[in-house]
């Protein structure tokens, strides 16, 4: 048992003691299973230490930090444009969505607001990155549960979205397109028509995944009733995003928050599900992709003319102050607390990433489940390692 923190060590000893009491009667011996850091089902290097009794988990604890890249420290020695390029890499599947809250926080400090065309384009790209991110989740879900085909559908259709993002921003994964005061550039010609076509394809993809996976009886028997998170537990562990909505909490920062983005100009449904089990979480995400395609379609119709950049100085110095902005990212609530002391770069940035809080529920959730269900639950919680470790 190497590399455990004090708290983990104590919890582990306690669990072993509890085991020992059971074992006296049943004459069984527990087993500690390390799921990760190298494991095909952990999207990177998350390590779950699980103490098993047979195939049942007695105690489990996620051990994060194998891919810690020190973002909060790195931001202290970089200028604002450089930080924008860096924070792209936090949740690498929906990277444009990472830039937006940071830029919004900086804009809040500077007291500038992006022109409405820029806000529209930001929102479009934000939703596109959500679609790219969550559609990959839908495919990956299949792999975690043993179905190999959905992931190829997901990669195929995500590619269309990535092509759009690349055409507009130049970067497939890391757009770095957002600037304080607006956007780097306007959209290239043809973007709107192409996006409409792709959104149609994505809706077909959602139907395919629904038929292939969500309708499948085996899938349902694997996910229904597995890993149930009640409403109050979800709130107390600080879950956000689809994980929270799947527990029946009607909470969506896109709708509930007044930030200079174009969501309030569109009409969309906040998807919730009362069950709170793995199926609910996956289902909510699937429906959210559909809603996102509708949001994008609406925004494409109403995109206003005008500049995409407000008047900001070439060399950006953010005035002294502190600002907190969070948005509804693909994985949940992502926010930046930016402290500036009037320099070209931030003095301190606190990053609240969704996955880190979302996996905090893992020890609670994994107690008593079977080994195959660990994978189901982790898959349905949906985390990106970069988003946990930062």
């Amino acid at each position: 048992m190497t590399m455990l923190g004090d708290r983990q060590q104590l919890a582990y000893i306690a669990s072993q003691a509890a085991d020992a009491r059971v074992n006296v009667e049943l004459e069984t011996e527990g087993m500690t299973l390390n799921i990760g850091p190298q494991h095909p089902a952990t999207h990177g290097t998350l390590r779950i230490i699980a103490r098993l009794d047979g195939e049942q988990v007695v105690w489990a604890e996620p051990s994060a930090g194998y891919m810690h890249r020190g973002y909060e420290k790195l931001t202290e020695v970089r200028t604002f444009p450089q930080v924008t390029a860096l924070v792209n890499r936090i949740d690498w599947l929906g990277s444009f969505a990472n830039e937006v809250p940071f830029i919004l926080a900086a804009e809040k400090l500077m007291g500038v607001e992006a022109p409405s065309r820029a806000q529209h384009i930001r929102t479009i790209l934000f939703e596109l990155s959500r679609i790219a991110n969550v559609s990959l989740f839908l495919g990956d879900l299949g792999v975690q549960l043993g179905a190999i085909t959905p992931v190829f559908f997901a990669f195929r259709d995500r590619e269309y979205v990535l092509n759009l993002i690349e055409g507009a921003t130049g970067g497939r994964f890391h757009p770095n397109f957002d600037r304080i005061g607006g956007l780097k550039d306007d959209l290239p010609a043809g973007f709107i028509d192409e996006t409409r076509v792709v959104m149609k394809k994505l809706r077909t993809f959602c139907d395919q995944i629904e038929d292939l996976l969500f309708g499948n009886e085996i899938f349902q028997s694997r996910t229904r009733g597995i890993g149930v998170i009640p409403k109050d537990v979800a709130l107390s562990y600080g879950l956000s995003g689809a994980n929270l909505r799947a527990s029946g909490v009607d909470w969506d920062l896109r709708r509930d928050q007044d930030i200079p983005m174009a969501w309030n100009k569109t009409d969309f449904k906040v998807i919730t599900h009362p069950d709170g089990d793995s199926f609910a979480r996956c289902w909510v995400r699937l429906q959210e992709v559909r809603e996102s395609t509708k949001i994008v379609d609406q925004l494409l119709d109403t995109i206003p003319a005008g500049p995409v950049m407000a008047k900001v100085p070439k060399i950006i110095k953010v005035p002294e102050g502190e600002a907190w902005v969070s948005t509804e990212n693909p994985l949940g609530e992502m926010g930046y607390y930016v402290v500036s002391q009037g320099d070209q770069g931030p003095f301190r940035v606190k990053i609240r990433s969704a996955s880190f809080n979302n996996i905090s529920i893992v020890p609670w959730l994994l107690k008593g489940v079977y080994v195959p269900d660990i994978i189901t639950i982790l898959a349905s919680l949906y985390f990106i390692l970069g988003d946990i470790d930062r």
Partner: protein
Amino acid sequence: MAKPKVPGMFKGLGVTFATLLATAKNGADTVQYPHEKETPPIRARGVIALHEDNCTSCMLCARSCPDWCIYIEGHKELAPPRRAGGAPRKVNKLDRFDIDYALCMYCGICVEVCPFDALFWSPEYEYSEPRIADLLHDKAKLGEWMQTVPEAPELEAGAEKKGKK
């Protein structure tokens, strides 16, 4: 759910079989890479090209690079005066301009900050090397990429035309 319910498993089988037929009929969605290539979009950030004549070795790009992968050395030189009888001009001569693509994270900040339009993005992407050290592109190689730099794309309707700064 009022319709006669097809078991979900058979629907799934239908999806895969339909895809099988579609692939057999229309061909795959994938590209057989070395034989056929997709053209990247105009804005794609493939490789950075250097227009050497415009560079004044002002070091702005090297300083703004988030991971410091641009190496510039230069010296001052006297050039013949523009007008007859004028004093000789001092120009910055570029000795070394290297970009280490093993470190570059393709953020594009250097291209953006360049005040003299010396750096450009090219969508060219086929420059992988078996040795990591060969990814350090020097002045001459960066200059060669200039031929692959495309014109900036047309903008979408409603965009404000802005003059080239």
